[in-house]
C-alpha cells in the first residue's frame, strides 16, 4: 500500500511516534522501549508483512545515537525506515531485532564493532572486524593519529 | 530389468557429456590460431596502449618548454588521497607587480589512485594522463616526481 495509507495504519499502531518528512519512504521514530515490540508487530501483522530487513545501522549525532533500519516487504512492496533514539551516550544499549530478522544479527554485530552500541539478548555479541582493544572508529570523537590524516 | 536399462543409459549419458566437454578442449588444442598470449618484452616497440590509457599524471610541455600550470592548487584540494603538492613562490613581473608562480608541482605516483579528478577539475587544463605503464622502480623515493620541468615557464595566454 502507498505511503499515506501506511501512515494511517502506523498511527493506529503506536501513540507517541514522530514522523519526520521524507520524500521517498515513510519514516518513523519509535521510542527505544517499544522498538522491539513495534518491529515484531511490523513483521507479523497481516496487512504490512515487513519481512525483509534491508539494512540496520546507526548514526552518531554527538549527543545521542540513532538506530536506523530500512525494512521492506517482499509481498506488498512497500518500504519503511524505522528509527529509534538512544539518549544514553556514554553506554548505549538497544534491544536486538535478530530474533525477528536473522540478518539483523550480523548488522548489529557490525554496529557494535564500529559504534560500541550493545544489543540486549543478542545471541553472539562479538566484534566483527576489529580487534577488541581498537575503540569504536565511527564515533565522531574517535581520533587515531597514526592512521587518520585529518585534511 | 528396468533398473539395468537406466543404469546403462546413465553411464552412456554421462560419457556423452564428458565427450562433449573433451571436444571443446580438443578443438582449442588443435587450433594454435586462437592463442592469446602477448609476448610482452619482445613486442615492446610495436605495443601501443589506448590513447586514453591512464598510465600516470603528466604536465605536457610544448616545444619551448612552456606549460599551463598557474599554481592555483585546485588539483591539490580535489585529490582524495593527497598525492599532489603544489609549492609556489613569489616572482616579480617586468611591470613590477608581484605574482604567484608554480615552483614545484610534486606528484606522488605511489599514492595516486588514478581517479582523474585533478585532470578534470584543473581550470587551465595543465594536467593530462600519460600512456607509459612501466613504472616499476627499486627505490620508492623515485615515485615522487616533479611534474614541471626545470626552467619551464608558464604559457602566455593562460589566465
Amino acid at each position: 500500500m502507498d505511503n499515506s495509507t501506511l501512515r494511517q495504519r502506523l498511527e493506529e499502531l503506536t501513540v507517541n511516534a514522530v514522523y519526520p518528512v521524507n520524500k521517498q519512504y515513510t519514516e518513523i521514530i519509535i521510542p527505544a522501549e517499544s522498538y522491539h515490540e513495534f518491529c515484531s508487530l511490523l513483521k507479523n501483522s497481516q496487512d504490512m508483512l515487513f519481512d525483509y530487513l534491508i539494512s540496520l545501522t546507526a548514526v552518531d549525532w554527538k549527543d545521542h545515537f540513532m538506530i536506523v533500519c530500512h525494512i521492506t516487504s517482499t509481498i506488498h512492496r512497500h518500504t519503511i525506515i524505522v528509527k529509534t533514539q538512544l539518549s544514553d551516550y556514554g553506554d548505549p544499549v538497544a534491544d536486538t531485532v535478530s530474533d525477528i530478522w536473522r540478518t539483523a544479527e550480523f548488522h548489529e554485530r557490525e554496529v557494535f564493532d564500529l559504534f560500541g552500541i550493545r544489543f540486549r539478548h543478542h545471541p553472539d555479541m562479538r566484534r566483527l572486524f576489529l580487534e577488541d582493544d581498537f575503540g569504536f572508529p565511527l564515533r565522531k570523537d574517535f581520533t587515531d593519529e597514526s592512521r587518520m590524516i585529518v585534511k | 530389468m528396468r533398473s539395468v536399462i537406466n543404469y546403462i543409459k546413465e553411464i552412456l549419458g554421462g560419457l556423452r557429456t564428458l565427450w562433449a566437454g573433451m571436444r571443446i578442449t580438443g578443438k582449442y588444442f588443435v587450433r594454435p590460431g586462437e592463442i592469446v598470449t602477448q609476448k610482452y618484452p619482445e613486442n615492446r616497440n610495436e605495443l601501443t596502449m589506448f590513447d586514453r590509457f591512464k598510465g600516470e599524471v603528466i604536465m605536457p610541455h610544448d616545444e619551448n618548454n612552456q606549460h599551463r600550470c598557474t599554481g592555483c592548487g585546485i588539483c591539490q584540494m580535489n585529490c582524495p588521497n593527497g598525492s599532489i603538492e603544489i609549492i609556489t613562490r613569489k616572482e616579480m613581473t617586468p611591470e613590477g607587480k608581484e605574482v604567484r608562480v608554480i615552483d614545484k608541482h610534486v606528484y606522488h605516483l605511489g599514492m595516486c589512485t588514478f581517479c582523474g579528478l585533478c585532470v578534470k577539475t584543473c581550470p587551465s587544463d595543465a594536467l593530462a594522463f600519460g600512456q607509459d605503464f612501466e613504472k616499476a622502480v627499486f627505490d620508492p623515493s623515485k615515485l615522487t616526481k616533479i611534474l614541471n620541468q626545470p626552467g619551464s615557464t608558464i604559457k602566455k595566454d593562460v589566465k
Partner: protein
Amino acid sequence: MAFNIYDFTEFTRSIDTGLKNSMSSGWAMFVEYAIIGVIFLLVYAVLGLFLVYAERRVCAFIQNRLGPNRVGPGGILQTVADLIKLLMKELIPIRNADKLLFNIAPFIVIIASFMAIAAIPFAKGLHAIDFNIGVFYVIAVSSLGVVGILLAGWSSNSKYSLIGSMRSGAQIISYELSVGLSLLTIVVFSGTMQLSGIIESQANGWWIFKGHIPAAVAFLVFLIASTAETNRGPFDLAEAESELTAGFHTEYSGIRFAFFFLAEYMNMFIVASIAATVFLGGWMPLHFGTGNAFNHVMDYIPPLVWFAGKTAFVVLIMMWFKWTFPRLRIDQLLTLEWKYLLPVNLVNIVIVAFLVLMGWHF
C-alpha cells in the same frame, strides 16, 4: 656386438657373454645390475623432466596460451631449470613432524615406481625383467606407492596433509580393483601373464582391434582406473589445490617435493606404457592378419618408435582428461569405482571368458 634395432636379444646376450668371460660370473652379474640401474636412473630423470614439460605445453595449448617458451629452445630446458631450483631450495624442517617417516616417504614412492618400470618391455628383448607373471607383478608393485603417500600425509603433522593422504589411500586401494580386472580381461584373451608373451600374441593384430567390444570396454575402464591410480585428472583429490592447498605434499619443500612431483609423472608414464603394451601391442607393429604386404611395410618402423608412439598417445589422453573435467568428490569417487567400474568389469570378464571358452575369438 651385433646391434640390431629390431631385435635387442642378440645385443644383450653378446654383452652378457662379453662380461662373463672378462670377469667371474658373480662380478659380471653385479656389473650388469649396475649398468641397468644407471640406465634406468637416467631414463627416469630425462623422461620425468620431459613429461613435465610436455604436460605444461599440452595444457597451455588447450588453454589458448603458449606455455614455457623462454628457457632453452622452445622452453625445453624449463623443467631442468625447475629441477635445479628445487635442488637449491631449503628443506624446511617441520617442527614436530615424525622425522623418520617424513624423510622416508618420498623414497618409498620413488622405489615403487622404479620397481614397476623394470617390468616394462621397451622393445623386442629390451626389458630388465621378464617374469612369467609380469602383469601380476606390475599390479602388486604399483600398489606400494600408496604407502609412501599415507606416510607423507601422516608424518607432516598438518591437518590438510592428513585429510589428503587419507583420501588418496581410499582412492588408490579401491581403484586397484578395476586396474587389475581390466588387465585380467586381456590376460584371459592372450592366455599368458608374461608381458612379452602378451605382445607376441598380438602379432596378428592388437588386442584392442581383435577383442573389439570387450577389449574396448576394458581399455576405457583401465584408462579411468589408472588415472585415478596416479592421483591425476578428475581424481586428483589427494592434492586438490582448491580444497587442501596441496594435499599430502603441502609440507614438503625442495628436492623432496621434486621426488613426489617426478614420481607422479613417472607413474603416469608407467601406467600409459602398460596400457600400450597390453591393449595396443607394446612394440608390435600394426599388423592385420598374417604375412601380407601391409605387415612388411609396417615392420620397417623400429619397435622402440612404435612403443614410444603408443605411450605418447595414451599419455596425451590422460593429460586431456586432467585439463577438461572438474574434480570428483571423495564419496562420488568411491561410488564410481564400486557401483560402476567394478560391475562393468566383472560382466566384461564373464563375456570374454565365455568367448574364449567357445573359441569365437580371433
